[in-house]
């Protein structure tokens, strides 16, 4: 059993440090609430003009929005700082990680937690509640399991994206903006009805950077909507597989990155 005590100790201190500056902290939370609301407004404005987009009505779109934002907010909270790797390298923190008896990635992940994302997370959870209430879902065990599974796997997928981004930072100087295109871009893609994308793009967001598994596929299954060729309903149950795939890739990126650090020298 992995001993989590050191990680808990580090995280506890990070949380305490953030709570210290109460006003800034509250402001930051309100800030991410604002971000969540703005993204929501985008969906709302579009549906002010149309009734159905990509096969989804407003309620379905809200569900997709909610699921993608919940998963992304949590991932961002826990590992969002992984694109700060260059800062850590410059400060010598990575070297400090090497001389401690803990795995590097675990240290890096636990070194920070962005509590302020809880604002965006709250917005997303509220939207989830609204969407689930509005939709006429035939609730059964399978649906509940699917919902929970999707949130867990979706968060894992986004976390993998951040980790892969972190690993790539070892290769590209100031590569954060480049990887952001796929982490934040991936989040943006995840909250759309996938049928709006032309096929090549759909394949990309489903099988290359599997963000379609985070929200759209589960939503289609939960709401019992007709699937199509690229989104058969049963695919929603494969979200955990997508998460595993994402993590295999992320793990390789990370290992390649640390090997390069040891090979090329900070």
């Amino acid at each position, binding site marked *: 059993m992995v001993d989590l005590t050191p990680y808990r100790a580090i995280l506890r201190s990070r949380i305490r440090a953030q709570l210290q500056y109460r*006003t*800034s902290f509250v*402001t*930051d939370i*309100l*800030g991410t609430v*604002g*971000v969540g609301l*703005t993204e929501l*407004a*985008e969906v709302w*404005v*579009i549906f*002010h*003009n*149309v*009734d*159905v*987009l*990509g096969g989804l009505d407003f309620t379905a779109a809200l569900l997709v929005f909610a699921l993608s934002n919940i998963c992304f907010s949590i991932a961002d909270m826990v590992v969002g700082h992984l694109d700060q790797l260059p800062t850590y390298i410059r400060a010598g923190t990575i070297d400090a990680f090497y001389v401690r008896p803990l795995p590097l990635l675990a240290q890096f992940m636990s070194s920070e937690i962005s509590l302020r994302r809880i604002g965006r997370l709250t917005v997303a959870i509220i939207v989830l509640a609204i969407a689930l209430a509005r939709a006429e879902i035939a609730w059964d065990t399978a649906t509940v399991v699917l919902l929970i599974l999707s949130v867990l796997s979706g968060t894992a997928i986004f976390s993998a994206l951040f980790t892969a981004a972190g690993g790539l930072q070892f290769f*590209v*100087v*100031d*590569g954060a*903006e*480049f990887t*952001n*295109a*796929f982490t*934040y*871009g991936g989040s*943006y*893609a995840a909250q*759309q*009805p996938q*049928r*709006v*994308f*032309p096929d090549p*793009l759909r394949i990309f967001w489903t099988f290359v950077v599997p963000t379609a598994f985070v929200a759209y596929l589960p939503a289609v299954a939960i709401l019992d909507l007709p699937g199509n060729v690229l989104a058969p309903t049963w695919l929603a149950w494969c979200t955990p597989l997508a998460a595993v795939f994402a993590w295999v890739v992320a793990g390789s990126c990370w290992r390649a990155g640390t090997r390069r650090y040891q090979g090329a020298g900070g």
Partner: protein
Amino acid sequence: MRTFALLVRAGFRRHSTYRLALLAGMTTNSVFGLIRASVLVAAVTAAGTQIGGYDAPKVLAFVWWGQALLGAVNLWGFQEVGDRVRTGDIAIDFLRPLNPQLTYLAGDLGRAGINLILRGAPALLIGALLYDLAAPPGLDSWVLGLVSVVIAVVVAFAASFIVNLLAFWVIEVRGIRLVWMITSGFLCGLYVPIPWFPDWLRTLAQWTPFPAMLQNPLDILSGRVDGGAIWMTLAGQLAWGAVLIVVGQVVLHRGRRRLEVQGG
């Protein structure tokens, strides 16, 4: 005037060394452009042929011109001036012969120029290659569109400049900056065209300078607004620009006085 031109060129050069960052910016633009284009075209198709004056080709032009202008027009504001006010370095700027607002504006125009060329043009090219964009309907749309872009840069700069100057009076500008960053993107028409907003939200947006930063030039360049109506749009933009520059000067003057009173 010559100094101004030199400063513009300096700003130009300073930002051109960040080539990798520009490449990265292009990737971001492309990814977001592709997603946004898909969504908005799907919306237009779902609604029939057009929404709010945007048919498919026009909305595609809207998206890709928007991505192209993103780097040039500083929608999310800058921090440099606010930081200098906080540290007191702003006093040095006051000692220089040229008005600080104009100095920073010059630098920003240079930055906008390089971004437009190195980051904006490729983004537009990618959009044009992949999609059937509506081209600006006439030469006047091209020329006046680019004029509109320049004014948009000025408006965005001037507005953010004022927010930065608040640092003279308010210690924690964090909250204001956050609100700025959040609302600017939305109310300038970056995510969804402003004509698509519900009436009340559209009116709200039009009472802010944000549409002048992006929506206006996009309207002209996509051809949604053409012919004589272009002049109306430009007039509105110019009005915002003028007002914000003047207010900026007033606030700068007040700030300088406060600095002198406090002893810097």
